[in-house]
C-alpha cells in the first residue's frame, strides 16, 4: 500500500523543491535539495508519508468495503428481501426499512443535543469564567471523567438505575403536558423510552461539548472582556456581549461534534430503548423508535447472509450521515481558526 501511494507524492514534492527553493525557512532548501537526503533518511520520509497516505486509504477502505458487503442487499429485488429476512417489520423495500431507522437515529441524537448543549455551555462558562482560577482545572478534570466511563456502563446505569428513577417524572409529564404530542400517548411503565435514551446520550455528550466550548471561551480576547467590564457591564452582560459572539462558531461546531457522536452511539440505546419501527414523535411511549446503530447490534449476531448485508447497508447510511455532520463541524472549526489567526 505504501509503495503504491507514497512515491508520486514524494516525487512531486521533490520536483517542486528543485524548481524553486522556497525562501520561507533556512532549512527548506537544504532538506529538499535531494543531495542532502538519501538512504535511511529517504526511507524514513517515505515511511512517514506512507503512513499519512494510509490514513486516507483506511477511510476510503471503510467506504469501499461497506459498499462491497452491502451490495447484495442493495441489488436484491425487494420481494426476495422481504421473503428472506424476518425482521423487516412490514417494510416492502430496503428504503422503507431504513427510513424509520434514520428518523429514530436523528430524533434521539437531536433530543440528546437539545438537552446537552445548554448544560454544557453552562459548565464551560462556569469553568472558564465563574469558578475560582485555582479550582478551574480540577473541576474541568471532573467533567472529563464523564468521558472516561464506558458507554456500556452508561447503558447498564440507564436501564437499571435511571429508568426506574425517571418513570414518575415521565408519567407526570404525560398527565399534565400530554396535550403536547411529544409527551402524549400511553406512558411506558418501565420508562424504556426515547426520552430516557436522550437523557443518557446527553450525559455522554456533556464532556465532548464542554471540552470544545471551554477552549473557545478561554480564547476570548482579554481586552474585549475588560472593555465590556470597564463600560459597566455585569459579568453576564460581559459574557453576552464579548464572549458568546466570539465563540458562536465554536459552539456550533462543538454541538455538531456532539451530534456526530450521538448519532453513532450504540450500547446505551440498545440496552435502554424498547424498539419499534414507526415515524413517531411520542417520547414517553414504548416501542416507537429504533436507531440504526442499536438495530445493527441487536440483529447482527443472528442474521443470515442477506440480513448481514442489509444491516451493513444501514451502517453505510449511518456512516454517510455522521461523515457529513463531522465534515461540516470541522469545516466550521477550520474557518474559525483562519479568522482568529488573522486577528
Amino acid at each position: 500500500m505504501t509503495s503504491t501511494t507514497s512515491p508520486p507524492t514524494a516525487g512531486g514534492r521533490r520536483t517542486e523543491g528543485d524548481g524553486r527553493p522556497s525562501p520561507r525557512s533556512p532549512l527548506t532548501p537544504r532538506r529538499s535539495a535531494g543531495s542532502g537526503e538519501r538512504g535511511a533518511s529517504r526511507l524514513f520520509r517515505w515511511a512517514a508519508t506512507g503512513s499519512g497516505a494510509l490514513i486516507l486509504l483506511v477511510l476510503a477502505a471503510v467506504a469501499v468495503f461497506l459498499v462491497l458487503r452491502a451490495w447484495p442487499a442493495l441489488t436484491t429485488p425487494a420481494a426476495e428481501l422481504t421473503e428472506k429476512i424476518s425482521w423487516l417489520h412490514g417494510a416492502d423495500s430496503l428504503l422503507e426499512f431504513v427510513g424509520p431507522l434514520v428518523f429514530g437515529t436523528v430524533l434521539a441524537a437531536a433530543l440528546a443535543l437539545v438537552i446537552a448543549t445548554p448544560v454544557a455551555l453552562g459548565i464551560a462558562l462556569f469553568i472558564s469564567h465563574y469558578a475560582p482560577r485555582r479550582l478551574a482545572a480540577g473541576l474541568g478534570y471532573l467533567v472529563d471523567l464523564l468521558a472516561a466511563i464506558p458507554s456500556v456502563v452508561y447503558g447498564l446505569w440507564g436501564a437499571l438505575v435511571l429508568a426506574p428513577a425517571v418513570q414518575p417524572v415521565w408519567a407526570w409529564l404525560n398527565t399534565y403536558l400530554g396535550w403536547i404530542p411529544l409527551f402524549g400517548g400511553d406512558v411506558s411503565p418501565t420508562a424504556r423510552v426515547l426520552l430516557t435514551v436522550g437523557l443518557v446520550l446527553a450525559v455522554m455528550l456533556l464532556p465532548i461539548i464542554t471540552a470544545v466550548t471551554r477552549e473557545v471561551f478561554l480564547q476570548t480576547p482579554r481586552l474585549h472582556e475588560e472593555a465590556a467590564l470597564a463600560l459597566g457591564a455585569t459579568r453576564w452582560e460581559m459574557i453576552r456581549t464579548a464572549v458568546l459572539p466570539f465563540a458562536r462558531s465554536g459552539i456550533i461546531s462543538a454541538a455538531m461534534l456532539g451530534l456526530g457522536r450521538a448519532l453513532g452511539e450504540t450500547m446505551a440505546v440498545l440496552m435502554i430503548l424498547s424498539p419499534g419501527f414507526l415515524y413517531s414523535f411520542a417520547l414517553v411511549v414504548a416501542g416507537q423508535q429504533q436507531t440504526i446503530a442499536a438495530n445493527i447490534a441487536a440483529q447482527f449476531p443472528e442474521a443470515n447472509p442477506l440480513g448481514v448485508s442489509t444491516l451493513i447497508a444501514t451502517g453505510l447510511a449511518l456512516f454517510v450521515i455522521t461523515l457529513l455532520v463531522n465534515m461540516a463541524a470541522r469545516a466550521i472549526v477550520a474557518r474559525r481558526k483562519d479568522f482568529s489567526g488573522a486577528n
Partner: protein
Amino acid sequence: MSAATAPAVASTDDLRRVLSTVDKGRRRRDRLMTSLVVGAFVVAMLPLVSVTWTVLANGLERFDPYFLTHSMRGVFGGMDAGGIYHAIIGTVEITLFATLISVPIGLMTAIYLVEYGRGALARAVTFFVDVMTGIPSIVAGLFAYALFAVILGPGIRMGVVGSVALSVLMIPVVVRSCEEMLRLVPNELREAALALGVPRWLTIVKVVLRTAVAGIGTGVMIAIARVIGETAPLLVTVGVIDSINFNLFEGRMMTLPVYVYRQYQQGLVPCSPDAVDCIATINYDRAWAAALTLILIVMLLNLVARLITRFFAPKNLG
C-alpha cells in the same frame, strides 16, 4: 445614565453612588445567570456521582479474587459462580494488538504531519484524521467484519478482527495526541542536531522523539483508555463465548464490555422458591462487578498516563 439627566445632583458622593450601582433588573439577571451556570455544573455532577456510586455499591459485592480468576464455563441458571477471567484475557489481548497496529501508524503519521507535511496531502490528512475521530464505533466494527469477510469468507469471528476495528477508532486519537506533543519540541533542538550533521531521520528518532517520549506515552495510554470500553464493534466482530480463548487468530473471544452487555441481556433468573443455590439477580450482579472492573482499568490507565507525564516531563531534562 439617569443621573446625567437628574435635575440637581446634591453632591459628588451621590453622583458616584448612582453611577456605580447597577440597576435592579440588570443585577437580578446577572444573579439569575450566575445561579444557572453554577446549577449546570451541579447538574452535570449528578450522573457522575450516581454512576460511580451505583457501580461501587452493586459491584463490590461480587468483586473478589474468585470472580477475577474464573471463567463462565459450565455456569448456568442462578448458580453462585462464574467470573470474568476469560473476558479480561480477551480485552487485554485484543486491545494490545490494536495498540500494536495503531501506534506505529499513528506515530509515523504524526511525524509526517509535523516534520515533513506541507501542501495538499498534509492538509487532507489533517482534515480526515479529524473526520475519522467521528466514525461511529459500530461502523468501524462493520468495516473490520466486511474486510475479513471479503478476504476469509463470511461469518468469521476472531479476536484479530476486533483489534482491527478498535485500531480504526484508535489511530486518529494517537495521531492527534502525538502531533500535539511533537509540535511542542523546540525547533532549536532540531536545528542544532541538523547543524551537527546528523541525518534528518536520526534527528527525528534520537532528538525529537526522545524529547517527546513522555507526551507520546501519555497519549497512547489515553488512546487505550478510550477504546478499551468499546462494546459495539467487538459485539459484531468477536462475538461471545463462555470459556477461555487465548488465541487471537482463531475462534470467538469474550471481552469485558461485551461481558457486561451479555450478563445484562440475560436478565433475571427464574428461581424456584425452594432452590438453595439460586440467586435471581446473579446476572445483574456479575454485570455490575464487571463494570466496576472495567472502570477501574480505565481509571488505572488514566492514572498511569498522568504519572508518565509527571515523571518524564521534559522539564527534567534541564
